[in-house]
Every structure is written in C-alpha cells, then in structure tokens.
C-alpha cells in the first residue's frame, strides 16, 4: 500500500508537468484551432536556456528562472510572428503542419548551440519532504503547486478578464468574436506567449527529475495530448485532472509491470485509448457542413 501511494505520488509530479504542457496545447487549440506540435520543443529550448544560466554558468535560480521565462515569452512571440501570422488565412490543418516546421527549426537551434547532448539540470531544491515512510522531493511539490496555480489562474483569466473572455469568444466562434472587436492577431500572439511560458515552466520543473535532451519534452508533449483529449481540447480543469491521472497511471505501470519500454510508451498508449473512447466528442471533430467556416 505504501508502495502504491509512493508510486502514485511520484507519478503526480510528472503528471503536473504534463499538465502544464497540456494547458498550453489546449489554450492554443481553443483560440486558434491549431494543434501545436511544438510545445515540447519550446519547453526544451527554454530549459536549455535555464540550464545554460543556472547549471552551466551557476547563476542563482532567482536570476536564471525569470530570464528563462523571458526567453520563453520571446520564443512564443516569435513563433506566432514568424510562422502563424503569415499563415493566418490558411486552414487549421496547414497551420498545424507549419508547427512541425517550427519544431524542426527549434530542434536545429538546440543542436547547434548545445550540440544536442544529454545533460542534467539542477533542480530548484534538492530537499526531500518526509511524512512517515512516505517521501516526496520538494521539486515535485513545487511542480504540483505551479501546475495548480497556473490552471486556476488560466481559468480565472479566461472567464473573468476582458482579454481572457476575448480568448474564450475566439474559441467559441472566431468570426463572431472578430465582429465584437477581438483582434485575432493579438489573441494568437497572446496565446502563444502564455503557452510558451507554461511549456517553459514544465521543462524547467520536470527535467531535473529526468534528463535534458532535445526530444524528451516532445515525448512528454505527446503524452500531454491524452490530457487535452480528456478535456475535449476545451476544458482547462479537466485537462489538469487528466494529466495528473495519466502521470499517476504511468508511474504505477512502471512500478508494477516489468516490460521494457512500457513506462516510456504508457502515455502514447493512453493517448490512443482515450482517442478511441472520446472520438468525435472533442474539439477536433468530424467535418461539418454549412458552419460558415467557408469564405463564401
């Protein structure tokens, strides 16, 4: 029983990091109908920046972390400006494919600057919190707190503030939102920036528990699609819960089932299973007729 709780709790940290990525994916999908394949790469790039400042140059975390976040803001802004804006008239699938292009570009940058080697990133804290026989690293606890705070903030932002409501309006009906004065350009750029910051937080918080290589966060991003699917690519709270469940499930599978490579692929299997169950109910539904999406 203790083992079970321990496995589940360990998984929660991974789950919360997945949640940060998933929230970004959902935010982007909600307001631009684009499925981002680049959240993982953005997370990696921001984490490499953090690694450079905090680990390689040994700057204190309170300097390195804000600078890495600033880098993430710049990355999100540039992705929108250089890849999404020019394609604003293209359909969502085309823009989705374009995020693959961005992925290749970011991967190239990482490989050129950091030679793509695997490295380890210093955690924010190395202490361990113990309750009886049960132990959790402070890093894991921080990850959980950040994810929950981020979700609550996002829900508040999208429901209670003017800009956030504009984002939600964009999700419901882009043309109606535009007629009401919501700028699609600003919405898109804001969404990408927020999502990039979420991705950066995910990378910075979770990589100390794993390793840092160019692909690690992209695999975590695919797992995060499972959570996004559970939330129907719309609901932020359900996305958070979904990510935590997937994280715990992954950790429990690793603990109890001994098949090589299974723990690594648990997330993908979850994605596939959830797809089969939730088919057509999410935002990425079947084609419809006469929904006014055509230019005529």
């Amino acid at each position, binding site marked *: 029983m203790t083992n079970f709780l321990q496995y589940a709790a360990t998984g929660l940290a991974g789950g919360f990091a997945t949640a940060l990525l998933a929230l970004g994916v959902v935010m982007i999908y909600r307001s631009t109908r684009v*499925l981002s*394949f680049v959240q993982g790469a953005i997370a990696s790039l921001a984490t490499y920046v953090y690694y450079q400042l905090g680990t390689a140059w040994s700057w204190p975390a309170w300097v390195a972390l804000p600078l890495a976040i600033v880098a993430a803001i710049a990355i999100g802004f540039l992705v929108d400006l*250089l*890849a999404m804006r*020019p*394609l604003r*008239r*293209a*359909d*969502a*699938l*085309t823009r*989705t*494919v*374009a995020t*693959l*292009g*961005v*992925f*290749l*570009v*970011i*991967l*190239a*940058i990482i*490989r*050129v600057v950091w030679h*793509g080697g695997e490295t380890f990133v210093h955690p924010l804290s190395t202490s361990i919190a113990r309750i009886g026989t049960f132990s959790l690293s402070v890093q894991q606890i921080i990850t959980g707190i950040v994810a929950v705070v981020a979700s609550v903030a996002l829900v508040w932002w999208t429901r209670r503030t003017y800009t956030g409501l504009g984002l939600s309006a964009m999700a419901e009906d882009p043309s109606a939102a535009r007629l009401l004065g919501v700028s699609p350009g600003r919405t898109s750029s804001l969404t990408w920036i927020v999502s990039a910051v979420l991705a950066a937080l995910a990378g910075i918080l979770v990589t100390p528990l794993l390793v840092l290589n160019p*692909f690690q966060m*992209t*695999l975590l991003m*695919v797992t995060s*699609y499972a959570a996004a*699917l559970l939330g129907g690519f719309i609901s932020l709270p359900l996305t958070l819960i979904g990510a935590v469940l997937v994280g715990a499930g992954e950790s429990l599978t690793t603990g109890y089932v001994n*098949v*090589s*490579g*299974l723990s*690594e*692929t648990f997330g*993908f*299997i979850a*994605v*596939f299973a959830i*797809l*089969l169950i939730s*088919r*057509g109910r*999410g935002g*990425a*539904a*079947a*084609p419809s*007729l*006469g929904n*006014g999406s*055509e*230019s*005529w």
Partner: protein
Amino acid sequence: MVTGRRGVTLALLAALAAAPAILSGYWTFVLTLAVIYALLALSLVVVTGWSGQLNLHVAALGFGWGSYAAFALVTYGLPVTWALVLAGLLTIPFAAVVALVAVRFRGLELAIATLAIGLIFERLVFRNLGESLARSAPGVTTPFASSFVSMPRPTIGGAGFSGDAPFFYFCLVLAVVVFALVWNVGRRATGRSLRALREREVLAETLGIPVVRYRIGAFVGSIVIAGVAGALFASFKQGIAPDSYNLDLSFQILAATVIGGIYSPGGAVIGGGLMALLPEVVRSGPLQIFGGERLFLVFGVGMILVLWRLPAGIAGWRGRRGRVNGEDGSGESIDEISVGALTAIASSNGNGAAGIVRRLYHSPTDRHARRPLLRVDDLRVRFGGVVALDGASLFVPEGEICALIGPNGAGKSTLFNCVSGLVTPDEGRVYLQGGDVTEVSAHRRAAFGIGRTFQTVEVFRELTVRENLIAAGYLLRDDDRVVAERADALLSSLGLGTVADQLPGDLPLGSLRAVQIGMALVARPRLLLLDEPSAGLDDRQTASLASLISQARAEYGFGVLLVEHDMTMVASLAEHVYVLDFGRVIAEGTPQDIRNDPLVLEKYLGADWADAQTAPRRRRAAR
C-alpha cells in the same frame, strides 16, 4: 505542359540511369538513398496529399514495418531479391488494421492517432522486437546496438546486386514501377475521387464516392509504398536498427515532401532528392554552415515558406499560387456574364417551361396513382433532447417537382438529410422507387439515383467549374471522355459555358448554385434534392434559377424535392407542396391550396407575411 513534364521525367530517368557510370561510388550510394526517400515521400503524397489524411509517423508506420517484413521473409528462406519486392505486400495486414482504426478519425485527431500509434511501434514494438530478433538470429553480429539485426543486399545469379551500382539499379527499377503505378492511379477516376474527398468529404459522399473505402485504400496503399521503401532501406543499410525509424525521420520526410510538393508524385521525387542530396551538397562549400544537424533549419524554414507562399510545393510552382491562403476568392461580386446567360435562358423560355409542365402533371387526385419515386414513412429523429422529426411522411411520384416548406427549425433539413443518407432516422422508413433505402449509406443512395445540393455552397474550391462537374461524375464509371462530354453538355444547358474554366471562388452566388445543380445532375439522378437554392439570391437570379431547374427537369426527366423559403419560387416551380412544422406535415396540396389554407397561413405564411408587411411600419411608428 504534358510534353514538358514527360520531357523532364525522361531526362531525369536518363540522368539517373547514367549516373553510376559517371559519378563516384559514394554519389551512387547517396543517389540510392534519394530513390528510397522518394518512395517514402510518395507514400505521403498518396495518404496526405491525395486523401487528406495526415500520417505523422510514417517512419514507424510503414517504413519500419517494411524493413522488418523483409527481414522476416529472408529469415524464412526467401531470396533477398524477392524478399525486397514482396516485403511491401507483407505489410498489408498491419496496414489494414491501422487503416481501419485511422478511418474513424479525421483531421487533427487522426494526426494525434498516427503519432501515438507510431511512437508505440517505435519505442515499444521495434525495440523489443529488435532485441529479441538480435538474440535469436544466429550468426549475427551486433556491432552498434543490442537490437541491430543484419540484412543482406539482394543477389541474382552469380553477378549479384551487392555492389553499390547494381543495388542502385535494383532500387531505381522498383521505384520506377511503383511511381508508374501510382501516377497511373492518380490521373484516373480513383485519383480524382481521392482529391474530391480530401477537400469536401460529405459532398464527395453524396456524389456517390465510397469515402470510407477510398480512405482505407489510400492509407493501406501508402503504407505498402512506405513498406517497399523500408525494405530497400534495410538492405541499403545492410541491417535494421530500431532507432532509425524515429520521429525525426518522419518529420523531416514530411517537411521535405511538403517542400517538394505533397500533391503530386513529382513532388515526391523532389522531396526524396532534397532529403538525401541536400546534406551532401551543403557539407562542403559556402553553404557549409547549414550542414549536419543544422539542416533541420533549412527544412523547417523551407516548409513554413512553402506553406505560406507555394502550397503545392516546388513541383507545383507553375500552378495556381497562394490558393490555400484563399486570397483569390473574390466573394459575392456579381458576374454580369453569367447572370446575363441565366437571364437569357430565362427569357427565351419565359416562365413557359415551368407553366407547361405544371399543367401537364397538375392533377393532385391521381398523384398517388403514379409511379412512386420517393416515399418517406413516419420519420422520427431526435438530437439529444430536440425532436427534429416527429412522424413526418411524404410522397413524391416520378418526374414531379415537389416542395417542402416550413418555418426555421421545422425539420426540413433533417428530413433532407434522412433522404440523402447523411442522417439515419431513429424510426420510420425511406423508400426510393419502392425499395427500402433506410439503412443504405449516402454514397450508395447516390448510386441508386439521389442527387442533392446544399444550402451553403459546397463545391471543390481548388477545381475549375468544369473540373467540378467532372469530379462529380464518379458514378458514371465511363471513361474520362464520356464524363467530360456529359459535363460540357450540362454546362451549356445550365448557362455556365462561359465560366467553365474559372475557379468557383471567382463566381457570384447565382452561378455557384447552378454549378451545384450541375454537379448533382452529372450522374443522372432520378431524384434531385434542392436545399434552399434561392437563399441569398435576388429576385431576378431566383427567377433565372427556377427556370433553369424546370428546363433541366423537362430535358432529363428527374423528380425534385425542393426545400424553399421563397414562396414565389415555390409557386412558379412546384406541383405539390408539403408544409412541415415541429417535425410533422401539417398540410399538403397544390401551391394554390397552400396559399389559401388557414392553418398554413397562421403557422407560417401568415405570420411571416404579416411581419414582412407590418414590420417596417411598426418600426417607423415606434420611432
């Protein structure tokens, strides 16, 4: 243009055939890889470019399977030559299973599904398979990894293909055969239908194209092609390392194919060439800074630029540019030429055509004695808590123009969708010419003789008007020339001759409605369903359209079920009218009867007309 393309193809083939004699062994080696990558890119052209399904992890789903299939065939004693030729076919069972799953998903869901399944194969199946094969296969050294298994080059007779040049020719011949097959499929009706369903799946279905079968076929076909490439790749590398079939490769080849041109086999050749040759070209010289890993940058930026400015890629640079961006759609400006054509037809026939036919058939008492075309019995449809149809029944005899009117939300469109097969009713039956078609899918109903239009304009935007009509000719199963003749005949009888080579985006709404009717008529339907053809048209255009419809009916003899709000059009065109309210028929009769029916007046016409008459006055009064 055609001779130009043939010239380029022949020149390329000649150059490739001569290459090993001219170039060094190393370049032959690189060219072999280009040929293999061209095949891999071709599989993406078929599945993504043609059928619109995004396979994001082709390296695992197809390429990798082909490698292991070839290995399995060699292990079971088949000569390597045959193993490489047949490995593609061995992937069919796997491909079929994944295709059956994939066909349930569309768009982004499909992209996620292929990504997830592909990663499961890459990270779980291939690694474990590789390790167990490496352990069990005797005499195999594993210099690189514990999961590496070796795979020989093919040999024929004593000479053998094991050298670089013979192996290059082996790959080239196989690739040319596959490309020729695919190219041949692409220019026939199959290729047209695939492109049609990529763009407008529901429309394709109502035109009689078996969408599900085609999507599965394209998926399986593409995986077989990728499988052939994978088999050659294993032999090329003289072994299989599971890590070669990673997401990196999938994204790169997708980017290279998009840059080359994802809509045509020619684009696959360019994409494959880029993929293999670009790293070699930039390895030396001034482009050196882009070498190695940095090449990703070129592919990434190139892909975004191509999506932005050149959606059909390098292969399509001479075609219509910027279409994906939709910048050339001129919206609803009135095209005087085609309106002129419509009006000319209308005035030459006067309202006579409609009038004569109506008098011929107009005899409501013996309506039910005539041969039945469509009978709808007691249809009930619920969407969640909303009852859309609540026991609707109607009858259309052969050759009649029958109208269905009713307020918004009365269930007219749902009834239409039940007849054309897009919605399956919870209860009730639909009979076409006496046969029960309630459970029959939309594309098979089209084959039974139902054609339909949509309230919003549904046409293939990337095809010209004439190509739209040809694409709608799937059910004719004639050779291309017959379909083209039929399309031309319809174009001239619909007054669209002058705009035949324009894109739909350049036409006014009235002409687009005529195009839609033309598309529905290509396959010679016995029943034509028209969903609010006059919506958005002014009076003049509506009159022209009505006369076009009645003229076409006189010429081709089909029956019509018409959903319409415009009572003038209903009165001038219909011989019989059903009034639907809250999912139920509340009245039927001649247009004259309906206008005088007190219930209808109160429920529908009265309220609407009274509103229309008094609303402006009331508004003025309020001020």
